[in-house]
């Protein structure tokens, strides 16, 4: 069985390399048979990787402790669902999972384009297979997933207890989906550069892939934040840890890209910028894996130094040098045909949105690699903590929020000052009024007031976009308001889906700002029966008990929660856990979450006489962060859902473009 896995892996590397060479060669010689052979080889790679992954999963499920990987990340007492999680719990497994996703995506992209984009496809296959070949060679030669132990272990070490959590089952897959899907748009970009077909065909073809990649990165980050919030037990959800930053940066540049391609599609401008953004975004996904897997920068995720660092660094350099060379080579054909018309235009709002997003990505990168940089340059190791990121990124993010409201108000090309004043008056008045009311009600933090005011401004402009759109549609095609609203969404999915995503982002802004500015944190040591308060909540420590099973032992404290009126509203049971394999303590947070605030309680310590220390937090509006995530899911669904008419239109446009391409 195990031999099959190893063999399939070697074979997958061979077919993958073959696919790269033969695709490029076939495209250069315009030999369809060779190009087809390259695609078949890529399909074969996918099948072989799938077999190899299946063998590893089988070994995990059957507790095959002859395998080093299984012995290190699983055990007989590990629940079944976590045995599958173990596939991405360790390094070899996560690289396998990565390879599986990537080869699956290559297969899907090839299948989607089996009759379209024939000129681009060989290079898409070659580029994405090059990435796959990198991961497969790591698996084949550097970190073999099927390495055997000298003697089979009797029992496994078990999966890290911190990873034995629901969110950890879905967080890494979501993040990997996001990371890996950027490879396909990158492949299309490289194909466009290689073939010189630099119109917006590659952008339109890869748009859905970009949306998917962006979406899964957002979800992956949110799931990760949720995991940190529930499991790590420090009351927060984002610590600006290098590994978190690594996943945030490609999301930021990807967001910039999704906005700036609209300018290219409309105005045939910013071509070099878009190419740069997609290359940078892809490079950041590789850099992210490098950060998580190399241990160059110390992180709470504490991965051991794996020796993979140099390989990732080399591959990253290869990607950057190779794509920059292609970009420079094509620079002449990428010159824009138009210039920006006016500083007061939607184009320039997009431009500044891009600068802000890239600015946040840059400062995050700078803060993340600062320890390494300062050691190189000055010989002292200096690190910057979360205060650095908050200080730099908060103003930039608030600027971004403001732009989100301004964007829809400004006309394309050139907006007249008079018209601007008219459209701005109502939303700005609403925003300012909301800010003033919030201030009068006791909100005195400047960033909180600004975020509230700008959020109101954005919500007003988005709502009026929907409203005026629906009214216009009613006037045009008749029907009721709701019908018109539905028609609006169907007709212009991308625009209105985007607006819905903006509403989600506003919710997240509010959640993040209020929960950081107005967070309450208290520490109390009490005896059984005693009461203490956390913010407006009263808590009574009732009882404690000890539970024991083969997997872990738990100390559970029972608390009754009362609101300010004295009514009992909840029973919370925070725990201290001791995992037995590996021996490790862990904190189990107890939470009562409402739209208004979260009461978050940690059992700090429990003495033998029953005296307990509790750390309590009240995190206002944090619920809206997760709710914003749900709205984002909805918005993405609206933007990306393949409506029949839209697909037909796209096909027609693509055919036309292809015909035009043949004529040239």
């Amino acid at each position, binding site marked *: 069985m195990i031999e099959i896995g190893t063999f399939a892996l070697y074979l997958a590397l061979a077919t993958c390399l073959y696919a790269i060479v033969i695709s490029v060669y076939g495209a250069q010689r315009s030999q369809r048979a060779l190009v087809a052979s390259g695609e078949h080889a890529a399909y074969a790679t996918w099948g072989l990787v799938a077999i190899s992954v299946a063998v590893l999963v089988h070994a995990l499920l059957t507790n095959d402790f002859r395998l080093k990987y299984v012995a*290190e990340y699983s055990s007989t007492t590990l629940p079944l669902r976590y045995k599958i999680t173990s596939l991405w*719990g*360790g*390094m070899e497994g996560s690289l396998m999972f990565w390879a599986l996703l990537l080869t699956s995506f290559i297969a899907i992209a090839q299948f989607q384009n089996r009759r379209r984009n024939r000129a681009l496809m060989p290079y898409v296959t070659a580029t994405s297979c090059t990435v796959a070949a990198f991961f497969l060679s790591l698996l084949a030669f550097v970190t073999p997933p099927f390495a055997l132990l000298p003697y089979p272990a009797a029992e496994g*070490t078990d999966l*890290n207890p*911190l*990873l034995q959590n629901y969110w950890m089952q879905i967080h890494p897959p979501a993040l990997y989906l996001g990371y890996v899907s950027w490879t396909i748009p990158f492949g299309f970009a490289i194909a466009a550069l290689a073939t010189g077909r630099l119109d917006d065909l590659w952008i339109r073809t890869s748009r859905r892939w970009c949306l998917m990649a962006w979406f899964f990165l957002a979800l992956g980050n949110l799931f990760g934040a949720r995991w940190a919030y529930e499991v790590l037990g420090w009351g927060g959800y984002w610590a600006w840890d290098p590994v978190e930053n690594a996943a945030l940066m490609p999301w930021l540049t990807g967001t910039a890209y999704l906005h700036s391609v609209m300018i290219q599609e409309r105005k045939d401008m910013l071509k070099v910028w878009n190419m740069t953004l997609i290359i940078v975004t892809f490079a950041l996904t590789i850099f992210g894996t490098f950060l998580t897997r190399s241990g160059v920068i110390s992180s*709470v*995720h*504490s*991965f*051991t130094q*794996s020796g993979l660092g140099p390989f990732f660094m080399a591959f990253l350099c290869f990607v950057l040098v190779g794509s920059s060379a292609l970009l420079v080579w094509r620079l002449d054909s990428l010159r824009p045909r138009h*210039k*920006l*018309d*006016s*500083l007061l235009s939607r184009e*320039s709002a997009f*431009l*500044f949105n891009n*600068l*802000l997003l890239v*600015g946040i990505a*840059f*400062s995050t990168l*700078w*803060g993340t690699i*600062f*320890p390494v940089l300062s050691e190189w340059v000055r010989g*002292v*190791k*200096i*690190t*910057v*903590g979360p*205060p*650095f990121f908050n*200080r*730099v990124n908060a*103003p*930039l993010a608030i600027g971004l929020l403001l732009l989100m409201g301004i964007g829809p108000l400004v006309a394309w090309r050139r907006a007249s000052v008079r018209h601007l004043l008219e459209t701005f008056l109502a939303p700005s008045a609403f925003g300012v009024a909301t800010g003033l009311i919030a201030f009068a009600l006791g909100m005195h933090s400047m960033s909180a007031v600004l975020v509230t005011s700008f959020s109101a401004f954005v919500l007003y402009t988005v709502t009026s976009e929907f409203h005026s759109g629906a009214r216009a549609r009613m006037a045009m095609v008749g029907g009721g308001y709701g019908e018109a609203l539905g028609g609006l969404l169907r007709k212009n999915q991308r625009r209105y889906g985007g607006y819905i995503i903006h509403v989600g982002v506003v919710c997240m802004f509010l959640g993040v700002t209020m929960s950081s500015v107005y967070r309450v944190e208290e*520490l109390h*040591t009490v005896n059984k029966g005693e009461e203490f308060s956390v913010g407006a909540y009263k808590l009574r420590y009732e009882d404690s008990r000890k539970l024991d099973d083969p997997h872990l032992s738990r100390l559970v404290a029972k608390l009754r929660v009362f609101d300010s009126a004295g009514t009992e509203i909840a029973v919370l049971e925070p725990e201290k856990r001791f995992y037995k394999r*590996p021996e*490790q*303590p*862990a*904190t189990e947070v107890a939470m009562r979450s409402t739209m208004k605030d979260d009461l978050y309680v*940690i059992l*700090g*310590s429990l*003495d033998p006489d029953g*005296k307990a*220390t509790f*750390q309590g937090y009240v995190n206002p509006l944090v619920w809206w962060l997760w709710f914003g995530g749900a709205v984002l899911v909805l918005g993405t669904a609206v933007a990306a859902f393949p409506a029949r008419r839209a697909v037909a239109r796209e096909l027609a446009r693509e055919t036309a473009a292809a015909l035009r391409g043949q004529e040239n």
Partner: protein
Amino acid sequence: MERQFKFAAGIAVMLATVGFLVWTAVDQTKMYMITVSEFLGAGSAYANSTVRIAGKVAPGSMKWDAEKRDLQFTIIDMGGQPGEVRVHYAGLLPDMFAEDRSVVVEGPYTDSSPFEARAVLTSCPSKYQAKDGAAS
């Protein structure tokens, strides 16, 4: 031309803002990452700045008062250099804190003893990737 100039000016202002924010924030939030022996041999090199000292909790040095939530311990150099730093920390005992484990203590530099830690960071003993040959 004037239009292009306006755009260039706008972009320049933006980039300058980002640069300025990064520059000042680094200056205000930087922390020196040092070892116990570097801390002891520093003189006043780190005066008025925040340091993160990496070391190992000396066996037998840990005093934890659960009632007052008061932690005192000594850290020694991980590389075996002589010298030790007494540390005081008020707060919850971190999950992974134990004697003979490596820790990082963070706080403003001081040449008086004990070092008042603002945070005690412990690293997780069981990594995602188990060390080769590590007993488990």
